[in-house]
C-alpha cells in the first residue's frame, strides 16, 4: 500500500534506467545517506564508530570487490584478503617512500597495484573454472602473504613485520578523530559503490554477467572472454586493494601481513554469500551482518545464559552460528539478504490488502 509504483510513469529511457526507478526507493536511499553521512558522525559514540561502523564500511567495500568478481563475473576467488594486503602495504610504501604523496593519490595507486597483482593471478581463469580456479586464487592468498613477510622491504625492515599507518592528511587537514575517519571512509565507500553500480548496469556489467551465465554464448555474441575476465579481476582487486588501504589507515592503524590471512578471505566470501551474490546492496548487508553478529553474540549470549558458559564457549558458539547460517543461506536463499529484501518489497506492494 505504502510501497507501490502505481502512477509513477517514465517518459524517457533515461528515467527508466535510473538506479532507483521507484520514488519510495529514492527517498529511502537519500534518507539513509543523510543518516549515515550526517547524523551518525554527530550522534554515534567513539566505540560505535571505531569498532562497528568503520569496519562495516571497509568490509562492505572488500565484499563489493569480491562480489564484482564472484557475484557478477562468476569467477570464484579465495584471495580477497591477499589483495587487501597488497593495497594496505602498497599505500604504506607509496606514502613512506614518495615525499609529499597525497593520501587520495596513494589510495588510488594502492588500488592500481592490487589491480595489477589481481590481473596476474587472474590469468589462470582463462583456462580453469569453478573450484579449480578457487584453488588457483588460494595460491595468490598464500603467495602474497608469504612474499610480504619474506621481503622486509615491504614493511620498511620492521623487525616484527608490523607497520604503523602514517597520519591521513588531505589538503593539510589531518583525519585524526574517529568522526573524521568515519566521514572519509563513508565518502570513499559511497563513491566507489556508485561507480560499481554504474559499471554493473551498463555494458561492462552485462559482459561480466554474460560470461558468468553462459560463456560460450557470451563469446559468440562478441564478448572477449579474456578481456572480460581480466577486467573483472582488475576491478575487483582494485576495490579490495582500496579496502585494504582503508583498513590500515582509517580502521586498525597497524597492520601485519598475517592479519590478511585465509580466514579473512573466507569472512569476505561469507559476507557475499549471506548478503547476496551478485548484488551491490548485498555486499553492504552481508558485511554489516558478519561484523555485527559476533558483537551481538558477545553481548547477548552471556545476558541470556549468564557467565557460566565462559568466554571460550561463546567464541566457539559464534563459529557454530556462522557455519549454521552459511548452510542455511546456501539451502534456503542462495541470493542472500538482498533477495530477502527484494521479496519483502514485493510483499509490501500489496500489504496490508491481500488483493
Amino acid at each position: 500500500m505504502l510501497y507501490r509504483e502505481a502512477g509513477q510513469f517514465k517518459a524517457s529511457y533515461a528515467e527508466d534506467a535510473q538506479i532507483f526507478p521507484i520514488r519510495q526507493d529514492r527517498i529511502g536511499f537519500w534518507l539513509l545517506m543523510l543518516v549515515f553521512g550526517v547524523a551518525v558522525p554527530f550522534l554515534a559514540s567513539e566505540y560505535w564508530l571505531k569498532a562497528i561502523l568503520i569496519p562495516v564500511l571497509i568490509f562492505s567495500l572488500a565484499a563489493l570487490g569480491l562480489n564484482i568478481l564472484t557475484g557478477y563475473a562468476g569467477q570464484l576467488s579465495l584471495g580477497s584478503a591477499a589483495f587487501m594486503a597488497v593495497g594496505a602495504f602498497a599505500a604504506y610504501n607509496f606514502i613512506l617512500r614518495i615525499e609529499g604523496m597525497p593520501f587520495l593519490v596513494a589510495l588510488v595507486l594502492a588500488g592500481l597495484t592490487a589491480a595489477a597483482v589481481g590481473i596476474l593471478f587472474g590469468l589462470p581463469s582463462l583456462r580453469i573454472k569453478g573450484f579449480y580456479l578457487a584453488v588457483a586464487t588460494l595460491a595468490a592468498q598464500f603467495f602474497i602473504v608469504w612474499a610480504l613477510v619474506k621481503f622486509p622491504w615491504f614493511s620498511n625492515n620492521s623487525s616484527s613485520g608490523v607497520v604503523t599507518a602514517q597520519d591521513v592528511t588531505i589538503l593539510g587537514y589531518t583525519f585524526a578523530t574517529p568522526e573524521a575517519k568515519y566521514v572519509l571512509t563513508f565518502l570513499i565507500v559511497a563513491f566507489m559503490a556508485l561507480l560499481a553500480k554504474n559499471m554493473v548496469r551498463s555494458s561492462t556489467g552485462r559482459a561480466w554477467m554474460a560470461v558468468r551465465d553462459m560463456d560460450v554464448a557470451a563469446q559468440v555474441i562478441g564478448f572477449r572472454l579474456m578481456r572480460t575476465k581480466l577486467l573483472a579481476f582488475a576491478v575487483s582487486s582494485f576495490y579490495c586493494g582500496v579496502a585494504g588501504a582503508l583498513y590500515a589507515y582509517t580502521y586498525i592503524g597497524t597492520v601485519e601481513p598475517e592479519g590478511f590471512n585465509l580466514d579473512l578471505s573466507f569472512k569476505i566470501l561469507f559476507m557475499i554469500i549471506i548478503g547476496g551474490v551478485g548484488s551491490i546492496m548485498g555486499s553492504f548487508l552481508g558485511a554489516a551482518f558478519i561484523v555485527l553478529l559476533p558483537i551481538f553474540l558477545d553481548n547477548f549470549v552471556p545476558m541470556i545464559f549468564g557467565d557460566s558458559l565462559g568466554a571460550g564457549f561463546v567464541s566457539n558458539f559464534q563459529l557454530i552460528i556462522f557455519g549454521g547460517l552459511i548452510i542455511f543461506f546456501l539451502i534456503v536463499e542462495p541470493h542472500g539478504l538482498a533477495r530477502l529484501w527484494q521479496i519483502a518489497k514485493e510483499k509490501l506492494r500489496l500489504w496490508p490488502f491481500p488483493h
Partner: protein
Amino acid sequence: MARKIGGVIVDLQNISLRFGGVKALTDISFDVKEHEIRSIIGPNGAGKSSMLNVINGVYHPQEGQIFFKGALRKKLEPHEAAEQGIARTFQNIALFKGMTVLDNIMTGRNLKMKCNFLQHALYWGAAQKEEIAHRIKVEEVIEFLEIQSIRKTPVGRLPYGLQKRVELARALAAEPHILLLDEPMAGMNVEEKQDMCRFILDVNDHYGTTIVLIEHDMGVVMDISDRVVVLDYGKKIGDGEPEEVKNNPEVIKAYLGTSH
C-alpha cells in the same frame, strides 16, 4: 516478395572436421546466398550443429576453405565472427539466466558500444547517451518480436517458447548479416511454431537478413526455405530447392531407410 536473393555470401569448400578419430564432417561444400533462407537438415548426429559451429568460428575445420563475402577467411575466434556480422541462436537455449530480458537483448549490441569501463563507471555524458541510443534500438527489436510485456522479467522465469524468442531477439539486436538458427522450433507447439516461422520470414523480409536454419520439422523447412542442404553421417547427400530435395532418392533413403 520484396527481398531479392543476391550473390554468394558464404562459400564453404571441402570442409572436414574431426574430433580425434570421430569424423563429424567429411568433405562438405555448399554456399549460402545473400538474403536467402538456407536450411540444413539431416538425421540426429548428421553434423548440422557442427556445421553452424564451423561457420561462426567455434570449431575450426582441419581441412577446407571458407570464403566469406568473397574473401578467404582465416581461422577466427567466435567474437571475430560476431564482428563480421554473424549471429546465432543455440539448440539448447543459451540465454544469460540471471539477467532480465532487456539486459539479455542489450548484450546483443555490445559490439556496437564503444565506451570503456571507466566511462561506464561514471555513467555520465557519452556512456549514458550510448546506453540510451542502444536501448532505443533494442526496443525496436522488442516491438518487432512482440515481447514488450516481459522486458523486465528475468529470463529464467519465462516459458520455453518465449525464451527461444528472446534468444532470437538477442541475435537480432546485433543487426547481423547472417543469422544462424539452430532448431529454433524444437519443442514448440503448433501455434508457437507458426509464430516463430512468421518472425523468421519477417526478419528475412524486413531486414534482408540471410538465414541459415537447422530444423527437424519438414513441413516448416519445405515451406520457408529457399534452398536446402541435407547431411547424413557428416556427408552431404543432397542440396537444392525444397522440391528437388524432397524427391532425391538419397535423402529418402536417409530418412525412411530402403527396402531390402
